[in-house]
């Protein structure tokens, strides 16, 4: 357990509350119960009173808490609530907007007498450190640029404006007066780099300070202040919630993976039946009829069950792949061969057929007049209406016609797609919940 300083305890002159003094150099202490500031040296009497009810701490950080930073114990001795009126650069609109912002500045003191500052606002936490710039500068008041503290390159101001003190609690070696203000300008370069300056009453600048602010995660701060009883309780509650999230996330993740695997499995079945041409039949002596002066017609009729792999009946293929029965796409390749079995022409085409077996009577329609199917379930019959140019007429007696079909299930049946999409969605959700 880290030991904090408690040099002495005094009573607030207004409400009598116990005020623990932790810093030997402290001159002022502000009661966290009633907001009254006491000057320990008794020199300053006109000190504005703060409103502790209005400016409560935002989260778990509290005066007196001890945290260990890189092996050095720091104790929180003060909190200043600030209100910023400022201009913020919008990189999309390329102009400044007037904004307001509230934040708390926690002052920590180590046993060595060194200080640390934590900035807390509604977006999280930052560690503020004093920096000595190689190229110190402040904006000239006429431009929205300043010089980079280390490279001297011109940089655009991300924010600039005025910070007002709204409340202070705890102890300080100097007087922190409500409504005191300072000006600031900030640019971003990895971390936030800030110049802050204050004025004498005659408007002359009294002091310029330079800071660098780096974000720190709440979990890291909880770890740093983990020895404090209040934080332990919060950490335990978070741990319980995290375990619960982990469990829930794991379940969702597992269900998502299962969905994905099922989807991929059926997708692979679908894909295994794609791009395979199945020879259906060969008409060695097709009969040709004249359609018109330029076209001969030959028709063939085939049982559709021949065009699917033997171990997967048509109807099983449809149902197992969750293929809607009304959206089967058939691809055909028609090969014309001569008597010597030399290929004289290859015709690839797609035919779209609309099948239905809801009433056990096959129905089909096709936009292409040269293709039709009839039959029920796996007993579908395909009729081909094949046309060749009349130029083939003289050779038509010697020409054989082979019909080859490839069944292409409509791209990923909606059930498979849904399964995969749901799987991916659940995996993402599961991972997010596990990480929370």
């Amino acid at each position: 357990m880290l030991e904090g300083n408690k040099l002495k305890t005094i009573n607030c002159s207004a409400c009598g509350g116990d005020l623990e003094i932790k810093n030997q150099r402290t001159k002022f202490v502000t009661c966290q119960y009633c907001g009254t500031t006491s000057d320990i040296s008794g020199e300053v009497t006109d000190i504005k009173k703060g409103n502790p009810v209005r400016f409560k701490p935002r989260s778990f950080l509290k005066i007196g808490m001890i945290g260990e930073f890189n092996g050095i114990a720091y104790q929180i001795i003060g909190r200043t609530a600030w209100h910023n009126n400022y201009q913020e650069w919008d990189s999309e609109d390329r102009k400044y907007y007037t904004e307001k912002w509230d934040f708390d500045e926690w002052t920590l003191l180590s046993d060595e007498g060194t200080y640390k500052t934590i900035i807390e606002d509604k977006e999280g936490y930052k560690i503020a450190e004093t920096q000595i710039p190689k190229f110190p500068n402040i904006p000239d008041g006429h431009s929205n640029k300043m010089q980079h503290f280390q490279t001297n390159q011109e940089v655009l101001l991300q924010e600039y404006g005025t910070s007002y003190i709204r409340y202070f609690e705890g102890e300080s070696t100097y007087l922190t007066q409500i409504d005191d203000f300072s000006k600031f300008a900030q640019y971003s370069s990895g971390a936030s780099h800030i110049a802050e300056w204050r004025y004498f009453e005659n408007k002359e600048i009294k002091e310029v300070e330079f800071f660098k602010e780096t974000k720190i995660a709440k979990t890291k701060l909880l770890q740093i202040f983990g020895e404090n009883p209040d934080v332990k309780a919060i950490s335990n509650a978070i741990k319980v919630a995290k375990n619960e999230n982990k469990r829930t996330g794991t379940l969702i993740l597992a269900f998502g993976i299962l969905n994905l695997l099922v989807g991929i499995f059926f997708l692979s079945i679908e894909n295994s039946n794609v791009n395979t041409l199945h020879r259906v039949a060969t008409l060695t002596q097709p009969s040709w009829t004249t359609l018109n002066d330029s076209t001969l017609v030959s028709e063939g009729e085939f049982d559709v069950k021949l065009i699917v792999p033997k171990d997967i009946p048509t109807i099983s293929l449809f149902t197992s792949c969750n293929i809607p029965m009304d959206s089967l796409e058939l691809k055909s390749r028609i090969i014309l061969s001569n008597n010597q079995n030399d290929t004289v022409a290859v015709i690839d085409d797609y035919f779209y057929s609309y099948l239905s077996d809801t009433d056990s009577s096959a129905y089909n329609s096709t936009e292409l007049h040269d293709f039709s199917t009839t039959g029920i379930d796996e007993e579908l019959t395909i009729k081909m209406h094949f046309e060749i140019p009349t130029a083939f007429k003289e050779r038509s007696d010697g020409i054989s016609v082979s019909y080859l079909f490839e069944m292409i299930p409509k791209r990923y049946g909606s059930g498979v797609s849904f399964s995969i999409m749901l799987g991916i969605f659940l995996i993402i959700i599961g991972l997010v919940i596990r990480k929370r």
Partner: protein
Amino acid sequence: MEKQTFACPSCGGTLELKYRFSKMAVCGYCNQTSFVENGQLKLAGDKNELANYGSKLSLAAKGTLIGLKFMIIGHVRFEYFGGFWDEWLVGMDGQSDEFWIHEDEGDLILYTKMETETIPDYQQLKIGTPIEFAGKRLFPTEKNKAQILGGEGELPYRVLPGQQADFVDGIFYGEGTVFSFKFLPEETQFYRGQFIKWDEIVIEKADNPYSEQFK
């Protein structure tokens, strides 16, 4: 270090001054402040005792500082509206320069006194407005009225509680090191410094300056 021995003009106690530039000494027995004048100690001001605010540094502390042996010879405390700060006069082994450690709000700066022919006017120094001085560009960062709260040990200038000690601090532009002007009634001092960390100071002994060990 070459020692000079004096008798305290107030209590008669023996004061051994180890710092050759010492112009003032505070008696370790009775806290009487005395000036060194014409080889003698003369009473100056009231007795004063500085409160211990828990610094790790103290009069006669010995050890190593940035790798060199050192000893704390003197101590001055200053006060201004924003608070107070301590300055510790450091004797560094084999070094003739005047070194000070400034301790303020947990920050430590090791300053070396610089000799200059001219000194800028306090009123003309504007915070945030760079000036050219001694061939360097200075960027003033803080300016304030201050006064001396008190001192102890041997000191190279006259320290009287309540004496004005206004200051202007800042940064050497393009270098990232710091400077400090101190405007005392009798002189204006100019220092060049750099921030140091506590782990750069190894304190071996922090004894009473008038103990045998210190001698």
